[in-house]
């Protein structure tokens, strides 16, 4: 299963982590890659732990779930604490910088950035945090081109919201430094 790139997106219900996961999967489809996306959540519509998964590969994907993620996005302390315990070796963890980073994580593999604050203050809408995150994730991992990512976003947002989502995507991209981009770029096997 070495050709699989497993991504997990975790947060609180309503933060949009499932949509973030779906957009990454859509970008993979647009880029001509194989992908499987799934999610796990409780019966409540808001609150509770929400977890979504995207597997990307150049080859046919059989098992649809993530077992040891190569990448984790965590937007709440609870999800960060829970899901950093099962990571692949060398996994990249992206977390909101308002959270406390567990001491057992390798700081060299952690990207702590102000996702929630950027959405609220710079983009102006707290609910764009998931799109800010998507922009930052792709700026770091560089799995897709900017065009592929924007097309994926467009397929999953209401008409008329393109501008604010583009703004969120760009704001997310700007959270990643060139050094981080060089360190975390991932080439699919």
């Amino acid at each position, binding site marked *: 299963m070495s050709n699989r790139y497993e991504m997990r997106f975790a947060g609180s219900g309503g933060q949009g982590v499932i949509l973030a996961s779906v957009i990454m999967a859509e970008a993979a489809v647009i880029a001509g890659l194989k992908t499987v996306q*799934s999610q796990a959540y409780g019966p409540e519509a808001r609150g509770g732990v929400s977890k979504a998964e995207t597997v990307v590969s150049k080859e046919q994907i059989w098992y649809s779930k993530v077992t040891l993620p190569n990448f984790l996005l965590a937007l709440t302390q609870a999800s960060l604490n829970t899901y950093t315990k099962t990571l692949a070796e060398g996994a990249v963890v992206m977390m909101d910088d308002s959270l406390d980073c567990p001491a057992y994580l390798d700081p060299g593999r952690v990207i702590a950035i102000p996702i929630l604050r950027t959405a609220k203050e710079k983009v102006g809408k707290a609910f764009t945090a998931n799109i800010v995150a998507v922009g930052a994730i792709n700026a770091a991992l560089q799995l897709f081109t900017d065009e592929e990512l924007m097309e994926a976003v467009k397929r999953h947002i209401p008409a008329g919201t393109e501008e604010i989502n583009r703004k969120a995507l760009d704001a997310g991209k700007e959270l990643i430094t060139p050094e981080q981009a060089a360190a975390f770029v991932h080439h699919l096997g």
Partner: protein
Amino acid sequence: MSKAVLMQGNEAAVEGAIAAGMRVFAGYPITPSTEIAEQSSLRLPQVGGHFIQMEDEISSIAAVLGASAAGVKAMTATSGPGFSLMQENLGYGAMAEIPCVIVDVQRAGPSTGLPTSPAQADYMQARWGTHGDHPVIALSPSSVLETYTLIIRAFNLSEKYRTPVIFLMDEIVGHMREGVELPNPNNLIINQRKPSFHDGANKQCYYVPDGQYVPAMKPFGRGERYNITGLAHDESGFPTNNTQVAGKLVSRLLAKVEDNVDDIVRVEEYAMDDAETAIVCFGGTTRAVMSAVLEARAAGKKVGMFRPITVWPFPEKQLKARLPQLRNILMAEHNHGQMLLEVQRIVNDGTPVSFLGKVDGTVITPAEILAKLQEMEV
């Protein structure tokens, strides 16, 4: 740019159903099948069809049977708790010979259980949930693309044999998204309704010519008057207490499926040609099994996958054909051992059968399957 689109299993069920000619959906939304109702409510008005949200699952299947009897291909979708409520009318559909498709996206039970977690524990309910001896056809997809093509087949079989077909999905496949390029539906055989009226002769509505199994279907409420009932009935459709007539009717209903298993049954096999161990699975479990089989093969182990696509009737002949070469069988399913009972019945103590199941709402992993194979000394 790729022509593929990202699609969820539940969405693919709706697209396939519409391609097959579904023009009425009546249902009561329930996790993890809700997207089927949602998507149907969006798509059906676009193709001149009708979506009805009913007050519960009993009325949902009643509306589907009514629509179908009146001449429109119809479907409902639910999960375990709703599937339980539909059982009485499912039997009515079998007895009155009303084609329809019932989607059950299985979740962890019993009762309301774990609404958002997967299971495959309605396998036996699909066969024996309604009372009385009755024919059952149930199909189970393992990918988003197969959900699309197989639900078309579900409609085709339902039309051909005039009987409800159960489309047995699970949360794994229903809520999974994959990139798919949908085939042109025109390339898939889609049955048309049988002729409304018998040619020439003034035959009764449930008249079946000798050597045939299925009466022609007249749309109810248009043209000729006739009767539909769940009671034992004669060729006129009216109730009878004549035991000979009743016996002949039920025997014919059962024979529709029993005598046509070769037409109805489909199996997928992978790496079975030289396999000494077969992992039997269906639906979403297949994904973990395929990963495990590929790893076992890479390690030089002669392991193959045997997947009933038609889960009822169980592919008995196909499994029997593999028994001489098999040293052992592993049944993997998300329940406490339901398809296992069918496998054991067919194997009849001839080949050791091991079991890997789950009842906690989590998904079986390839690692768990490989560990089980090790335990079996494969």
